[in-house]
């Protein structure tokens, strides 16, 4: 299935966007969790504060659907 990961800030460089400046298109086998997807991309879990999809918060054990866009929020810079 195909999913789209989006991010910005410090996480963008690790994501390696290829659709636009923020978005990476991924074709994945099976129905992996976000945690497993990050492992495959070599992105440490600590670089992701949480995921955001469908207008709501998602944990790293979330399993994206085909065609879904997931925003990865890096840890905020204090506030």
């Amino acid at each position: 299935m195909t999913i789209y990961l989006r991010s910005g800030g410090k996480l963008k460089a690790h994501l390696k966007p290829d659709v636009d400046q923020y978005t990476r298109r991924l074709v994945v086998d099976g129905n992996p969790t976000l945690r497993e997807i990050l492992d495959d991309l070599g992105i440490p879990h600590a670089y992701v504060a949480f995921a955001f999809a469908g207008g709501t918060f998602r944990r790293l054990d979330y399993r994206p659907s085909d065609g879904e866009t997931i925003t990865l929020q890096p840890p905020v810079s204090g506030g």
Partner: protein
Amino acid sequence: MDGFGGTILRINLETGDIERTATPPDLARGWMGARGFIAKTLYDEVPRDADPLGPDNLFIMAPGVITGSFAPCGSKIGFGCISPATNGHADSNMGGMLGAEVKYAGYDMVIFERVSAEPVYLVIDDENVEIRPAGDYWGMGSLDLEKRMKEDLGEDFQIATIGPAGENGVVFSCITHDFGRQAGRCGVGAVMGSKKVKAIAVRGTRSLPVRDLPALTKSTYDIIQRTKTHPLMEPWQKYGTALFVGWANEHGCFPTKNFQTTFHEHWESISGERLAEEVLVTHKACFGCWMNCGKYSVAKIPGKPDTYVEGPEYETIALCGGSCGMKDIHHVAYANWLCDNLGLDTMSAGNTIGFAMECYEKGIITKEDLDGHELKWGDIDDFENVVRMIAERRGIGEALSYGTKGAAERLGRGTLAFASQAKGMEFSGYDTRWYWAQLLSYCTADIGAHHNRSWAITADVQIGQDTWKGKAPVVIYLQHIRPLFDTWCCCRLFWGELDVTPEEHVDTIHHLTGWDVTMEECMLVSEKIWNLTRAHYLERNGGPGRKFDVAPARHLDEPIPDGPAEGHKVGRENFERMLDDYYYNRGWDHEGHPTREVLDILGLPDVADNLESVGLLGEPIEGGVPKVRGERLKPKAM
């Protein structure tokens, strides 16, 4: 002078004299506003032995060069003084609408001198400036007063107030504006209160002169278009900074029960998601911002009236929430409101009350000290009782009104070991035992422990935790780039979260002022300010500097007992190595004293002379100070 209001206002509260002078161009270019103006003025004018709560201290309000422009985040205004918490330079800023209003009234700095005989408030209505009696207002809560003054003066005035805590000199009193924005840290509210200034009301209707309006318009428009569709805009708008609560718990830095541990078993009940589900009413933005990161909430607690508050932000959730053992987002929101209306910084208040809760747990503070109340973890009624005692400086509240360090010094019995503070100001919402760069940031910050000076948490993750190596250059870089935003006086969230580069802010300054300014120049200004406030601190407090850059025992010696970061601590030797590396990379000597060489580079030879005259000038460094400075210090790790 393009980009600036053009006038410095000086108010003598003793005589009632009001003096206006033109803002000197060399002050504007050399120090860029807000933090820079405050640092320079405090250094030049406040006697070294001035009591922070006495008549010789100054209280300063100053916007920055970007404030009031419609460029991104140009909302902030700075307040400064000698801090009653640290006895050093203090600056603290707030968002909202006040900064722009001050600029539009035509002012770049308002300096309050001496002390009024009676409570007063200041009204600035463009060129008309009045000191008015505030007898009816004295004693009111900050939020209550702002509402009252809007009714009395009109909705088009922007108001900043202190609460009873500031009137009573609590060293972590804050200044509140726009019903929920604070200049929270360093006790600026206490100094405003010491001068018997209850409120400041401003209306500005003039235009801000801009050198190149078409270019400013275009660059701002481009940033708006880009950031509106930025992927991180939506989560920010939905949760604000509270979205960080989960990560902080899962990665071992969430302060829990006075930093006893770093994982709060009930964190989900006080998370950003719970905030959005249960208490959120609407979102709120500052002047010129479209992020709307502010959250306006309602706390509904049986037996208490529904209470509306801006917040809670991450810091309040961490310190009034986790560090006090709270398990209910409504309770955290209510605690936020209590602090706001009493005029207390939620960060220092939460940290101090958590400290007091541990003292109660250990039997060092008793029910008798608390007027018959208890002080149990997570109990909102106990929290309310003690926070009111602090604001009134009543009973045990008197000792606690000095913050954790001052309270520990008064309570004794080993309590200093679990006071999470540096230089007398409380840690913000991050435990540092697994984040060593953050500990270094806290302990070397000029204003005491504040993450806004340097938030190094992800640097620790990127470089590697449990090591001191490579941390000092990162901290120094962050201590230059982050306070630069306090100097420009604009919000750093667009840079930190939405990929608006600092260079774009420099372009904004160029379009505003016409200055041929570079990022390198701006970073050197920031480094210059850092060294000036360091020198000021040493001249006020003596040396060696190293004895002030100390870490709390809990963070050095006590391993985290459980949770994802179980077993981690910093260790004294590691901290000292980081500090050695930090001093060297700053061009300071082994005792943490700036050297003549680095002060000359930064254009501060007179400061070197002053330090030398009191025996605090740094010894020359063998081989000279590191040549990499300013922007070029940006480590690869970033």
